[in-house]
């Protein structure tokens, strides 16, 4: 089972990202998934987490994810080195940042950085980075095919917004593969 935890702030679309990914895996990726937010009364701006579990068979365990294959940090102010302890062996933390050097200095092996804001600004004209971060996550994990996510995005957004977000997704996917590989 692949277990992914999303860190962001209320309103940044972390839970939407976890859900888009889960739907992509379930509906278009021939897998099973669970997607859920951290449950609570948090409002816009509060730090929140969301979870996606992906597996080849129906997932029955609904408990929160403690040991992650991937931790996706949408808002770098939420990063703390202690997050490294929550990774499974071989796991990765994906951080939305323009300051690659800062994080490489902390852990070059465990941390991958990606400037999602740049792509989001370029295509959406707004720093909404959740679809960019999904693209980057797929790029480093290949947990499901990127076209499955594109289908899921079509389901989630109205057609014009979906089209832009799919461009964000694909470009993020391509860009991180170029950088990362």
């Amino acid at each position, binding site marked *: 089972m692949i277990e992914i935890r999303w860190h962001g702030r209320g309103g940044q679309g972390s839970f939407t990202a976890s859900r888009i990914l889960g739907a992509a895996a*379930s509906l278009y990726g021939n897998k099973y*998934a669970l997607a859920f937010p951290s*449950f609570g009364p948090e409002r816009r701006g509060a730090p929140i987490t969301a979870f996606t579990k992906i597996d080849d068979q129906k997932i029955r365990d609904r408990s929160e994810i403690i040991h992650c294959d991937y931790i996706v940090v949408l808002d770098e102010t939420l990063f703390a080195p202690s997050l490294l302890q929550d990774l499974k062996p071989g796991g990765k933390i994906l951080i939305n940042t323009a300051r690659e050097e800062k994080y490489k200095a902390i852990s070059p092996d465990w941390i991958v950085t990606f400037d999602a804001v740049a792509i989001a600004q370029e295509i959406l004209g707004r720093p909404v980075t959740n679809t960019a971060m999904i693209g980057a996550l797929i790029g480093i994990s290949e947990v499901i095919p990127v076209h499955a996510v594109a289908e*899921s995005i079509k389901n989630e957004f109205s057609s014009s917004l979906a089209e832009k977000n799919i461009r964000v997704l694909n470009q993020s996917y391509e860009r991180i593969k170029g950088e990362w590989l």
Partner: protein
Amino acid sequence: MGNTKMFVSGNEAAAIGVKLARPHVISAYPITPQTVVVERIAEMVEKGELTSEFLHVESEHSALSAAMGASAVGARAFTATSSQGLLYMAECLHYASGGRFPIVMMNANRSLALPWSIYGDQRDSLSLLDCGWLQVYVEDAQESLDMMIQAYAIAENKEVLTPVMVNLDGFVLTHTYELVEVPSQEAVDAFLPPFETENKLDFENPKNMCFSSSPGDNMEFKYQQHRAAAKAAEVIKEVDEMYHKKFGRGYGGLVDGYRCEDAEIILVTLGSITGTCRVVADELRREGKKVGVLKIRFMRPFPEKEIIDITRGAKVVGVLEKDISFGYEGTVYTNVNSALLKSGKPIQSYNFIAGLGGRDISKNDIKFMYTYLEEAANGVKKEYIKWINLGVDTDGEGN
């Protein structure tokens, strides 16, 4: 039109199930974590996907009261609530079952104040076990959708005519997204016929309903109500089998025993935690331990016979529940023990109180419970009531 697949939350799955059951009237009041159900249904009504009267009532008491009014003229009615809201409608709960109104209600299981908590446990519905409703606890979003449809078939059965409460664990189930298969409207229509009842206000045959009765008659009405709720046990099984035949999914009726056939250690569960227990049971089985999971689906009618049958070969039974009856033990445990007592075979039993106020129940916690039961079966003396995961020292019993 065939089945479609959707990636939805437990709440959304419930809403889809409700839509497919085509209630005439929906009356509901928002409360976390139930809200999404009524939001989705409101959207369905707005889009014209569902032609129902949607009443924006001003309280849960009114929600169920309006549902009863609708049912009393022969309409199919739905409402949904949670926690404090369920308690606020407590008077109406007894009224609806006593009035024999086959209403279906979704309840998002949530802790009760005080202290305030929006998180999940099952004290809300379990504290209302005696209100005359049939109570089913579902495990995942698919079961949630399917049970909305089954619930109407059960409730409206002429020999049952009793309302059904479909319980979903708050957040863990209501807010978790997963894959569900959505049956076609045509198939559901064929399975669930339009609601027909004699128990209604009718201009051809006017009635006086919800009357008083003196001590000379009252008990007979209660007996009748009791018989109907007990009769539901058969109907639940029939409906589940029919549903299985038609849609390919069945849930075992009143209970679902998992790897219990030769199990020596059985953990009894309720609701969505069952999934985690299945995973742990699989792991322990791989280690050669003879463990099983017994999911109670219906708390009313209570699956006494089924529990006796399934635990017949067990050495020890543990009851895991998100509930406590203060000053005694968990209510599910009390009920299970009553059944075990009637089996005529001495089976040790233990009660795990866990997950109150939304505390997470992890795989490790469940492993701990199985180990606890195994040790008890091997003669180690154990407390009968064990609170799981208390975060502090208590110097007291049970910990």
